[in-house]
């Protein structure tokens, strides 16, 4: 393809991806409670309101707690499973792996209804713990896939060498295996954290009326009219995602992770 045409095409895609965010960023700077772009006046008050008003602070706190703990739980499920599957290629470990992938393949509303019926039956409907556990299962795919990739990248000869030198399986795990998969664990955790922070439907179905997360708060607030605070929240989310994925891109192997996370390659 013609070089100039290709650059134009790429620029158009970038404009498509960036323009909603640019407008939101501009709107968040309006001086009065209005939604003009370009903004009228300049003020950072909406950002101040976001981090001082309890109406926004409580959802932020809820979302942070849920994202931190559910990603930790997802990691704790994914690590032993990926380790076991790496050591023993047995069918039931593969079946469990497929089970861990499944929540990501189905339309989220289905999983959400599944969780809703479950927590309603168990009697924990509306509790934060229900949201945490649901998110952990819903996003377990991400650490599972990234950590499995980490295990696959370990040269088996190094492991054999350690064993020849007399290390038992615990020592091998602690000194050889764990340090090599650590960065993949961080990536998996980060993916999980960002997605949990942004997740709406599962959190809403499981305990949306009692535990308000940030996306739920935004959606509820939208019904009563738009304010520049919502634009400020959006900017906050975009910056957080860009920061975390930027760090993964800088220190991790994003092209490889992207390749592995794509559902298409999982089917092979």
């Amino acid at each position, binding site marked *: 393809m013609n070089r100039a045409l290709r650059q134009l095409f790429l620029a158009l895609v970038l404009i498509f991806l960036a323009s909603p965010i640019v407008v939101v960023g501009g709107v968040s700077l309006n001086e009065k409670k209005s939604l003009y772009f370009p903004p009228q006046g300049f003020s950072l008050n909406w950002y101040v309101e976001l981090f001082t008003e309890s109406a926004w602070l409580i959802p932020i706190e809820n979302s942070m707690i849920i994202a931190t703990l559910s990603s930790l739980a997802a990691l704790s499920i994914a690590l032993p499973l990926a*380790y076991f599957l790496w050591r*023993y290629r047995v069918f039931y470990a593969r079946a469990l792996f497929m089970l861990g992938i499944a929540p990501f393949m*189905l339309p989220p509303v289905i999983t959400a209804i599944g969780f809703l019926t479950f927590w309603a039956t168990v009697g924990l409907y509306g509790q934060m713990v229900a949201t945490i556990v649901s998110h952990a299962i819903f996003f377990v795919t991400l650490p599972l896939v990234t950590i499995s990739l980490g295990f696959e990248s370990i040269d088996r000869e190094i492991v054999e060498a350690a064993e020849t030198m007399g290390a038992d399986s615990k020592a091998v795990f602690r000194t050889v295996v764990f340090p090599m998969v650590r960065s993949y664990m961080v990536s998996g955790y980060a993916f999980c954290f960002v997605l949990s922070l*942004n997740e709406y439907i599962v959190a809403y179905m499981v305990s949306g009326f009692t535990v308000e997360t940030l996306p739920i708060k935004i959606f509820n607030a939208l019904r009563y009219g738009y304010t520049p605070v919502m634009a400020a929240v959006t900017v906050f989310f975009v910056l957080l995602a860009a920061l975390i994925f930027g760090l993964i*891109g800088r220190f991790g192997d994003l092209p490889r992770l992207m390749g592995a996370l794509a559902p298409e390659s999982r089917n092979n």
Partner: protein
Amino acid sequence: MIEDKPKGLRVHLPILYPAVMLVVFFVIPFGIMLAVSFFQREPGGFYTTDFSIDNYANLFTMLFGRVLVFSIFISALCAAICVAVGFPFTYFITRMRRKAQVVWLVILVSVLSLSAVIVAFAWSLLLSQTAGISNLFVWLGLMEKPVSWSPGFWALTAGMCYIAFPYTVLVLYPPLSRLDPHLPEAAQTLGASPVTTFFTVVLGSLRSAIVATLIMVFAFTLGTYLIPQILGRPQHWTLSVLITDEAVYHSNLPLAAAMAVFFMVVSLGLVGLTTLIGKSRGPTTQ
């Protein structure tokens, strides 16, 4: 260290906890959902135990049919747009230097991770009267006065494509980066223009990957729930909205469960289809 057959309980200890978690919190919820889809609704509560196929019989109403047809239509449209734009786009980024690739991937993953609430809000602002792009057109002299384009069919299409596009690139990235770079080179050495090479060699050798991607993106957009509520009008609601509505506003959990089971069968069928296509793929993409 790498053994074929693990023996004894002690060896299985690491897998015990993930197995319990996944079975208790994933398999059992789906089992309960399946059971509830046969139960009766209890006004004021969740459900009463029963066995009837009423919920499935009630599924096939005019409204459900209309929503199903619209969901399929809009998802197919978005999948077609995303793949048509995403394929050349992904091809271009896989040919870039690694550093440039990483930058694009960071942008795409960041957009993909954004909550649908945020995407819908951002697009409704972009298409609004006070802050929207129509102001730009007015400024350029293309329009008389700014107008609002949201909610509406095209606002919905734009919003859905916005979240589906990074996903499309993510799905297309592995097969396109695995594509042997010598293949297009060889075609060009033999005299094909870059455009001809793209359409015959690149597109041709990845035909099944494209079909698989179309289905994956279709299934992905079928799951969107928030965007139709914010960027669309009630006639643009999708199956996901209808299911949530039934579960949360009408508190009819059994009917919602029946819908979800129906939806799951459709989705699993689609996933199965992509797997079949993946298996029958030619050697160039492996």
